[in-house]
């Protein structure tokens, strides 16, 4: 018995020692964790959480906004945007835009991150590469205003025929096959960023695959890229405008698609901006006195119709009936309930500029006259127009995103109850929704559109008969005519008139029914300033951010 007791006691003290050791090692392991922080005034660094790993940091082929966020910190085009969103010189210090050509004079002090000068040849190389069919760049169309670009892209000409040449190391001449009033805004877009031939070719397939496989010319350079885990950018000592860049470091220590997780990281003071929140993640934010911010991200959502023969939606009166019962306010405020989203009456976002003022202020869109009785009359006319006694069931295609599904269910209820239509909702994953749209396998789609460049045309030409994104195959000569005026007129007023005409046609012919303008919700550290939120280009942007010193200093 005594023997046993003794053994148990020694066991006890052994286990106590063991636990002490474990506890100590835990403390050692855990202690360095408190070092990560949302922002630091002393080191001039800020932390952020991304939604996903950047899929493609090769500017020549990149199409997605996540990569765009990184690229717009580490690269720069001929032109760029100032903090107010105005086009200003980037690599180019001076430029001229004519009917048939554009000339850019490059800065003497524009440098790559290896210290070498950026030359006009770097643009010639990159742009040729973008339009070469073998590159398979999905955004090659950005360069189509340039002479021969489209023919090269379609494999008819060699890329050396592209209308761009280096007059000398610092002068770039671009020939345009038709007047392109918005060409300058294209030169701030990532597809037109330069690339150094010797570097790109030395990397081969590995180009842009890792932080060491890229050359940078933007305000920051990519210094760390742990795939799926973290990204870090540091101030580029060779950037020509480095004196106006205050931040030293942009840290992205977290990558998660979970909005709640991003919000929790913000609450734990680990990140300075929690972006793309959802209403659910805002629970308690107001009690904690957080300032919830919103901004319109440029995405417009609308009902797209199928105009192929044999589809009932080709009937104008059917579309008019739908237009006459749909209330965008109800959808935005009662159904979706996302702070920051706005009702929509036109394809053009409310923040886009017109001739002098905002476009929608210069050319206010029509608001539909909501009237169920009138809608029923239209429906009767639609039946006559289509020559049927009873309208067939209509397929409403939507993707499986929360907003897509909510919108589709709301439209189904609305159109069934007010018009007695038989609506079949077809919910698909995003890629399958696109595949079905391209195949024309729908009557109506809950569709969306985001801008590619900073000009009304990126929205205005959407329903041009030749536009591949016009998946409902709307086809009207009148519409195409006004698109061509908007495309090539160098007179701003005439262009704006053309855009207004397109807006009117979209309303009168109910080419589509605007649903809502999407807003992004975010919270931001009160001491962080100068974070740019933009619909076009990488978002958010910290290039011009500053940090206020802490209150106790």
């Amino acid at each position, binding site marked *: 018995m005594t023997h046993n007791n003794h053994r148990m006691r020694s066991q006890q003290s052994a286990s106590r020692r063991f636990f002490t050791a474990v506890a100590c090692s*835990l403390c050692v*392991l*855990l202690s*360095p*964790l*408190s070092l*990560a922080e949302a922002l630091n005034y002393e080191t001039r660094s800020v932390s952020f*959480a991304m939604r996903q*790993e950047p*899929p*493609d*940091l*090769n500017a020549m*082929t*990149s*199409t997605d906004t996540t990569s765009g966020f990184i690229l717009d910190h580490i690269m720069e085009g001929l032109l760029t945007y100032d903090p107010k969103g105005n086009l200003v010189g980037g690599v180019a210090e001076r430029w001229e835009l004519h009917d048939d050509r554009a000339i850019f004079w490059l800065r003497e002090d524009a440098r790559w991150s290896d210290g070498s000068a950026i030359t006009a040849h770097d643009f010639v190389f990159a742009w040729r590469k973008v339009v070469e*069919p*073998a*590159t*398979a*760049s*999905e*955004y*090659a169309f950005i360069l189509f205003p340039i002479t021969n670009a489209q023919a090269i*892209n*379609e*494999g008819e000409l060699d890329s050396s025929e592209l209308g761009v040449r280096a007059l000398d190391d610092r002068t770039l001449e671009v020939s345009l096959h038709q007047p392109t009033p918005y060409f300058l805004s294209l030169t701030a877009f990532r597809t037109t960023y330069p690339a150094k031939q010797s570097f790109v070719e030395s990397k081969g397939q*590995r*180009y842009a*695959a890792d932080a060491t496989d890229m050359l940078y010319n933007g305000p920051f350079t990519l210094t760390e890229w*742990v*795939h*799926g*885990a973290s990204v870090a950018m540091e101030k580029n000592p060779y950037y020509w405008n480095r004196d106006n860049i205050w931040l030293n470091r942009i840290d992205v*220590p*977290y*990558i*998660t*698609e*979970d909005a*709640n*997780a991003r919000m*929790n*990281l913000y*609450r*734990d003071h*680990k990140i300075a901006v929690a972006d793309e929140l959802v209403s659910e993640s805002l629970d308690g934010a107001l009690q904690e006195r957080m300032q919830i911010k919103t901004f319109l991200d440029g995405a417009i959502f609308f009902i797209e119709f199928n105009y192929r023969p044999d589809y009932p939606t080709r009937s104008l009166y059917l579309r008019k009936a739908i237009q006459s019962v749909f209330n965008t306010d109800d959808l935005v405020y009662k159904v979706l309930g996302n702070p920051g989203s706005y009702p929509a009456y036109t394809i053009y976002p409310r923040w886009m500029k017109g001739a002098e003022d905002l476009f929608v202020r210069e050319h206010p869109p029509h608001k539909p006259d909501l009237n169920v009785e009138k809608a029923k009359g239209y429906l009767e006319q639609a039946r006559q127009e289509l020559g049927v006694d009873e309208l067939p069931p209509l397929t409403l295609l939507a993707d499986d995103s929360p907003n897509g599904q909510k919108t589709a269910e709301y439209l189904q209820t609305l159109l069934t109850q007010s018009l007695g239509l038989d609506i079949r909702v077809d919910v*698909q*994953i995003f*890629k*399958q929704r*696109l*595949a079905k749209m*391209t195949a024309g396998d729908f009557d109506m789609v809950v569709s*969306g559109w985001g801008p*590619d460049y900073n000009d009304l045309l990126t929205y205005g030409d959407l329903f041009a008969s030749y*536009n*591949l*994104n016009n*998946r409902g195959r709307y086809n009207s000569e009148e519409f195409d005519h006004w698109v061509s005026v908007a495309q090539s007129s160098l007179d701003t007023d005439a262009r704006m008139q053309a855009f207004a005409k397109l807006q009117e046609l979209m309303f009168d012919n109910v080419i589509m029914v605007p649903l809502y303008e999407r807003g992004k919700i975010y919270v931001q550290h009160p001491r962080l300033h100068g974070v740019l939120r933009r619909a076009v280009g990488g978002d958010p942007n910290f290039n011009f951010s500053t940090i206020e010193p802490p209150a106790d200093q």
Partner: protein
Amino acid sequence: MTEFIIKRLLSGLVTIWFIATATFIGMHAVPGDPLANAKAMKPEIRKNLEARYGLDKPVLQQYGIFLTNMLKGDFGISFTQKNRRVNDIIREHFPVSAVLGVLALIIATVGGVVWGALTAIYRDRWPDSVIMFLVVIAVSVPSFVFAMLGQLGILGVNKWLGFSLLPVAGWGSFGHMLVPALVLGLSTMAFLTRLMRSSMLEVTNADYIRTAKAKGVSPLRIFYKHQLRNAILPVVTVLGPAIAAITTGGFVVELVFAIPGLGRYFVQAVQQLDYTVIMGTTVFYGAFLVLMVLLVDILYGFIDPRIRVGKH
């Protein structure tokens, strides 16, 4: 023994081939276009992209190319991570899932055995009821709820302490793993607890226990030497599949805690129809599962001499 392992490895290869083929057929049968993007693509661009990924060839030929490359251990380049090889994705992200999975498994196994043994010892008394009640909750509540609660829990503790005891998300140190591993192992732990309880109860009434008691062996020794060792066998049986389930099933946990594991790629590849990543991760996980089951079969022999494999 060697003969047994070789036999099993060969049948494992057939299994992997079958998994690969079934996935390949399923993947191509699922509607949707892997190359589709929000912006429409010119036919010429599409043709070039198809050529890059070999989608321009007949499906049967694609299958042949895939099998040949698979034998060479090359799964190609991801559709969504444009410049990354699938091999790199697996190589960089599986270790993360594995470390997390092993920790989760340790928590699950130790917890399962301890709780299970406790419930059996205190059968029909309050510790049994309490633990079994918790087990039912852990089995029936989906893991994303625990993940979110776990994160909110850390947040609350950090706030209360005034400093970060544990990180709410991220990866890099032991502190990052603790709560995610606990959440990840929770349902397995619950499952093992139930298993352990029933097999403990079975053993308790066995003849050799009564004999041991009659011989005056101390209860502690009976528990360790006779009950536990015999009762743990069914637990080991399910350990193989459990390892695979834990290392592959971390998607939600990886998402909530921003952990760069392979589970996220595995699930997102399916959502985005990333053909090469789907094939690569499925075949890899298939092979992993086959290996784990084999490993467990070999382990049996060490725990229970009666079923040492390969001996006649």
